[in-house]
């Protein structure tokens, strides 16, 4: 039964907010990389945004129920992709995260997020009971844990951590008994210190220097210190585009990817970051609003999964920029330069639109 989906029914406010953030991102990439070896990054990013828009439109046209019905195959495909990446992937900076597809180097772990959102939504929507029992938790944990492990092995701790909010948000949306919550918290408190020993040395360093960045200002703490200096140097009104010394004299690490918000804060000051963060806030709230109007629980879980993921990204990336979160190397959605991340975000926004377009039961 083909149903007419009017294009004016798309979430236009969501699109405007998204494109505003992308515009800020492209401009900031342009400003931060002018005269460096990354000076082409801005138009590449513009290209990613343009293609991402197309992907978003396509995704919104798909009925998310169709995707949910085939989510098992998607999931298996993902695992296969991650394994392929581990086998034939490109090794960059000591970690194997990328795979070459048709001239693009794709970061496979970024696209896994979408499938995990669908998988969690599908599983929870199919629940017979009102609440989750241990079997459900174990199954969900297993589904999410497997790709997490694979991504962690790449190694890419940051991206693998982004899978957690998808799971947590889904579980909390269904609801969890207090007893379960307490037990899980207890287990986490016990296993985290043990897990610390399995971290790579540089990952440990990052955690230590998060707690105390001045301990080794020339080493691991360097990025945090320089980022804080850049942010503080921006002051209320900012130094102005291309006028930022921290960004342009190379003190800020990767000012167009993970630390783009630091560079943005230096050039546009407190006023600038408030505007950007308000846009992010509105973006998340708009997605949440789509969750509220969703026609069924599956749609709700999809939208909330996307919102939770974005919130986590913003919290961890921006928190890192101001030294309130450890350096994990996850990008800022829509602003950081990078194709895979941009495309995966647009695909997720497409899913949100897909839910929206089908909010009326006919």
């Amino acid at each position: 039964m083909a149903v007419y989906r009017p294009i004016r029914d798309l979430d236009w406010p969501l699109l405007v907010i998204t494109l505003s953030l992308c515009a800020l991102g492209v401009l900031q990439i342009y400003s931060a990389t002018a005269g460096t070896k990354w000076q082409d990054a801005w138009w590449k990013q513009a290209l990613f945004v343009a293609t991402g828009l197309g992907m978003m439109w396509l995704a919104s046209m798909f009925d998310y129920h169709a995707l949910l019905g085939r989510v098992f195959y998607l999931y298996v495909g993902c695992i296969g992709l991650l394994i392929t990446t581990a086998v034939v992937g490109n090794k960059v900076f000591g970690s194997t995260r990328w795979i070459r597809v048709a001239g693009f180097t794709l970061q496979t772990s970024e696209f896994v997020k979408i499938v995990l959102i669908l998988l969690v939504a599908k599983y929870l929507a199919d629940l017979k009971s009102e609440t989750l029992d241990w079997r459900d938790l174990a199954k969900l944990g297993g589904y999410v844990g497997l790709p997490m492990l694979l991504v962690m092995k790449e190694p890419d701790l940051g991206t693998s951590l982004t899978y957690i909010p998808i799971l947590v948000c889904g579980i909390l949306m269904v609801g969890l008994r207090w007893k379960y919550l307490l037990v899980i918290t207890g287990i986490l408190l016990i296993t985290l210190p043990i897990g610390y020993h399995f971290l790579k040395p540089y990952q440990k360093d990052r955690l230590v220097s998060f707690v105390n960045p001045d301990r080794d200002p020339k080493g691991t703490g360097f990025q945090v210190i320089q980022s804080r200096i850049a942010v503080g140097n921006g002051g209320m009104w900012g130094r102005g585009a291309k006028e930022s010394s921290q960004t342009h004299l190379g003190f800020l690490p990767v000012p167009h990817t993970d630390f783009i918000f630091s560079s943005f804060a230096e050039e546009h000051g407190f006023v600038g970051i408030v505007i950007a963060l308000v846009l992010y806030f509105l973006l998340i709230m708009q997605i949440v609003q789509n969750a509220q109007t969703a026609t069924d629980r599956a749609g709700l879980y999809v939208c909330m999964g996307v919102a939770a993921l974005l919130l986590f990204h913003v919290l961890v990336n921006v928190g890192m920029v101001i030294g309130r979160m450890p350096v994990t190397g996850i990008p800022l959605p829509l602003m950081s330069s990078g194709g895979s991340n941009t495309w995966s975000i647009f695909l997720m926004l497409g899913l949100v639109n897909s839910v929206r377009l089908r909010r009326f039961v006919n």
Partner: protein
Amino acid sequence: MALIHSEHRRTEGVSADRLLREGPKKASGKIAIFQYLTVAVFVFLISGFWKLQVQNPDVYSEAAERNRIKSTPILAPRGKILDRDGRVIVDNKASYSLLLNRDQIKPEHLPPIADALQLDYGDLVTKIHRMGNRPQIIIKDQLTRDEIAWVESHQDAGAYPEMQLIKAWRRQYPQDGFAAHVIGYVGEISESELDSPQFIDYHQGDIIGKDGLEREYDQSLRGVDGQQRVLVDNMGHERQMENAQEAVPGKDLRTTLDLDLQSVAELSMDGKRGSVVALDPRDGEVLAMVSRPAFDPNKFTGRISRTDWDAIASDPNKPLMNRAIQAQLAPGSTFKPIMAIAGLETGVIDGETHFHCSGGASFYGHYFACHIKRGHGDIELHRAIAQSCDVFFYNVGNRLGIDRIAKYAEMAGIGHKTGVDLPNETQGTMPSTKWKMRMFRQKWYAGETISVSIGQGAVTVSPLQLAEALGGLADGGKWFKPHLVEKDRPVLQRQATFQPGNLEQVISGMYGVVNEGGTGRAAYLPDVKVCGKTGTAQVASTNLTKGAKLHSDLANNVWFVGFAPMENPEIVVVALFEHGVESYNAVPIVRDVLKAYFDKKARQGRPVLEKRTAYQPAPLGALTRPSRAMLNLPLQRGALP
């Protein structure tokens, strides 16, 4: 627009259909929680930015500036020190210093650097730690040509890029400790100095005046260092040169010293221990000041090594002590002119008063000897001064009592700092009943007055104090503050008016010392009427309970104070010759300086000054404290061209 529509929902079980409509509604509470959480996250993030960007933006903008600006100091040369004729006493010589840029220092580089430049590794490390807040640390001054070559060949990125050569100025002092005590020396500011409020504007590693004029006039001698600021990137590559902020050189300091007189005084003190001070009594200008033994200030310039410092500081001869202002010794018979004027003004004696000297006399059960064992026989004031008869002055002192002696001595400045513009002047001692009560909680015994009246006992003076005291007396009772910098206006510290004839009698006695076969006859100059007074002092003990005799095994200190011309004196010279044994040993020192002064004046064709002022008749013992207005009164310096 039509697209795929799934049959999916229909395949779902009944439970899914049941939840179809109510599902989202049930979750609304949880969604609200998510929304609150989102708000909390954004508040958390924005508050972080608020803290960094708005609350204390300066901290971070300064940190950013420290990141990007590498500034190299352009050191300002210190002002030169000149004599009264503009001749250079202390100059600067260009040299190179080596500094380390803190943010590039690598610990493993320090041992080879220390090794190549012969620095002590431990000292270097402590220094780098001590100057924790300086971006650059000067680690060595006055690099030799070989060291400069070594640094230049090892500064590139592959070797020790933290090293940087800068142009510096090395202080060049006269050789052999010439005028060393007056000039002082410079050195690196110490921790204790940094803590004191006086040095609030100074920084760690600054070179400051440590003693003498260098210290007293440090503020004007030191210039303002400039800066060459360079924009650098994170690799330390220089991107852009900013305009240099040029150094402002320090101001030259023109002193009142006369190099000719100073040279003569230095020569005449050669091999001796003691001090010479030459003063213009009319305005307090110090013409020469020598203290021996001396030290070589060139060894102190910049950063003195610990061993050198220890060697000088622990020398038992105390070469660092400026005896001209810091010696505290009994004036001996040079105190007698003050006794004489006190006796005359109070009326306890007059010009005709005779005492009998049989080589000694008994007072209060003690026998006090005269320095001439056979005695002077019947003696009056004029001869008593000229022959330096002790018994005469024992009697004068006994008649005066300690407090009247103290009044006149303090009027002349004994027991008070002269206020000369040099650091660490000592005050000396003028005993009195009050002084003894304050110091020892004891009353004064009349017997103690007897030693004081010949300048022994508790009386101690420095050569400069004595020069001021007797110079001011010779100038008719005007005591000017001694000073070493020419532009300072004369400051009249105290003034006295004497009864007519009294001062003339004292001065005529001092004339007799030199010209009538007295104790200072070696100071005679053919063309100038030189007056003077010798002094022989047993090494003073400030401890009253010890008798002066306890120190008889130590050789006496000898003094001579000479001034000329007799009327309207232009120069007063004090020589202190420690352990000089006999007073006539001090006389030639003063004679040489006086001769040099008048010879120079004759060469320059300067007439000997006309009589300037007559002694003003005044009531008995009138001692006026100058009013505030008078203290800063600029005085006409006679008719000097």
